[in-house]
């Protein structure tokens, strides 16, 4: 009998411990997720009721050129950021780990600092750096192209420019992961290889790189998922323009829902993004587990 009441008491205590999280989670996460699915099958405005229209929203998506453009731009942005930022972060991490003590802390702080800045701070600074008339980088651009370029108003420059700003902003996070990975490689490996007369390049190719592969896979997949959620920088730097050349999925969700008042259609687009990212995350989880990390 005592055992039973004890058991009941434990369950009650456990319930009280998980309650705050579970209640918040149900209210602002689970319920909106269910509503998202439900809304995507209706023609509702943002606020107010609508009619059930079955799969019409999704059919419409397939022939919506702006949706296809957005999807393409999301893909293009991934190409411009994921591998470049991973390679750059690896290079910086290798350079920073060579340093010792205070010098290392200083270098790490410099490369990491942009990551903790609010995104409008980053976009304000780069709007100024790249200002058509007075931007400090325009002489550099002029040197290579012969004339100044209004990068965020030019359909060819806009995505690479946003990608570069994004890399400057977020690269510190990747550098940190690589440094953690490098610190986990036992020093004896290098000493042994050096005794055998290995060159700097051999050390990297035979010791560092293979042992760093799990972290590299982590960085690549994290970046892939992160860059799909692109919104802030595009909204603040180019608002999707010019001629929709930087229009992306999340921007489309925002426009449809909050400017055009199409709650149902916006939900359908958001649901597509939701499914793509959830699928990629599951894949990532499996990949990293197979890689022996968890």
């Amino acid at each position, binding site marked *: 009998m005592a055992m039973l009441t004890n058991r009941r008491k434990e369950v009650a205590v456990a319930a009280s411990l998980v309650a705050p*999280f579970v209640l918040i989670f149900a209210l602002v996460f689970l319920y*909106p997720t269910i509503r998202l699915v439900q809304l995507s099958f209706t023609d509702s405005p943002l606020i107010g009721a609508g009619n059930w229209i079955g799969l019409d929203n999704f059919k419409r998506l397939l022939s919506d050129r702006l949706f296809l453009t957005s999807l393409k731009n999301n893909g293009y942005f991934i190409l411009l950021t994921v591998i470049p930022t991973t390679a750059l972060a690896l290079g910086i991490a290798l350079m920073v780990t060579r340093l010792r003590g205070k010098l290392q802390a200083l270098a790490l702080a410099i490369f990491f600092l942009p990551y903790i800045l609010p995104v409008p701070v980053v976009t304000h600074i780069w709007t100024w750096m790249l200002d058509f008339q007075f931007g400090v980088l325009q002489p550099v651009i002029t040197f290579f192209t012969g004339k100044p370029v209004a990068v965020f108003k030019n359909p060819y420059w806009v995505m690479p420019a946003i990608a570069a700003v994004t890399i400057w902003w977020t690269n510190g996070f990747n550098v940190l992961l690589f440094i953690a990975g490098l610190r986990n490689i036992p020093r004896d490996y290098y000493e042994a290889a050096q005794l055998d007369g290995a060159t700097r390049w051999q050390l990297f190719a035979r010791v560092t790189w293979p042992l760093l592969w799990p972290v590299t896979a982590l960085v690549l997949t994290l970046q892939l998922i992160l860059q799909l959620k692109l919104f802030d920088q595009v909204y603040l730097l180019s608002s999707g323009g010019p001629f929709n050349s930087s229009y992306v999925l999340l921007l489309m969700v925002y426009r449809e829902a909050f400017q055009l008042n199409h709650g149902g259609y916006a939900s359908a687009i958001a649901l597509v993004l939701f499914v793509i990212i959830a699928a990629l995350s599951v894949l990532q989880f499996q990949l990293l587990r197979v890689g022996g990390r968890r």
Partner: protein
Amino acid sequence: MTRTRKFENWMLTSGTFVAAALWIFPLYWAFITSIRTEERVVSNGAGIIPDEFKLGAYIDIIRNTNLINWYINSIATAVIITIVVIVSGMMCAYAISQMRFPGRRILYGVVLASFMVPIQALVVTQFILMNDMGLINTWAGIILPQLVVPVVIIVYKQFFDAVPKEMREAVVLDGGGDYTLLFRIYLPLNWGITTALAIITFIMAWNQFLWPFLAVTTEDQMTIPVGITQVNDAFGVFYARLMSVALLGAMPVAIAYLIFQKKVTEAVMISSGVKG
């Protein structure tokens, strides 16, 4: 060490510092711009060496914008978010890690699954919900959707799992319950990770743009990141002021980072599953 090796080392170290100088240059340039007059900023002679120290742009920003309001909103919402996220996450993680109750595995599964879901995709329906509850343009409206941070539970669970079982016995023999265990044993043993998680949660909440941008429409209710985008519209291209407001907005998190650099580094590494 051979002579060529030494030379290579020297080259690599100088290369690192050239790269670091280039990396920090945008922030340096923003600072130099902010302490010049608007006329000087766009004049031909405005080089990359500081030649003026004028605080006019900063004074103008503080006088003529809602900056003080935005600071208050940002500090209040970020602090509340941090406290609720850490306390609720810690309690939930303790129950999952140390107690037996029906639904424990399912709950942890849900936490792991929600870690994989993009919260940005939920903004439309979160907005509808907050609007139905009458919370648009309130602190509660800014805060509520930011309270689900599953990674805090995942990290705490790993740390609680690692606490030796013998630590429990003394408390249990004295008749202490699970709340006593959590707040007298498990929390003090994990102060390090708690402060690290709290700092990174605060920085992330401070920097949040998309949700506060949607949840607030009146200027005096805005947080710093949303508010400073308004300055752009109000002034047009007055770059000294734009850079001052950007730096003023970045200051609190930049200072928090520089003071707690080690903690931030630790939190980022641990919450991504890489041990440093």
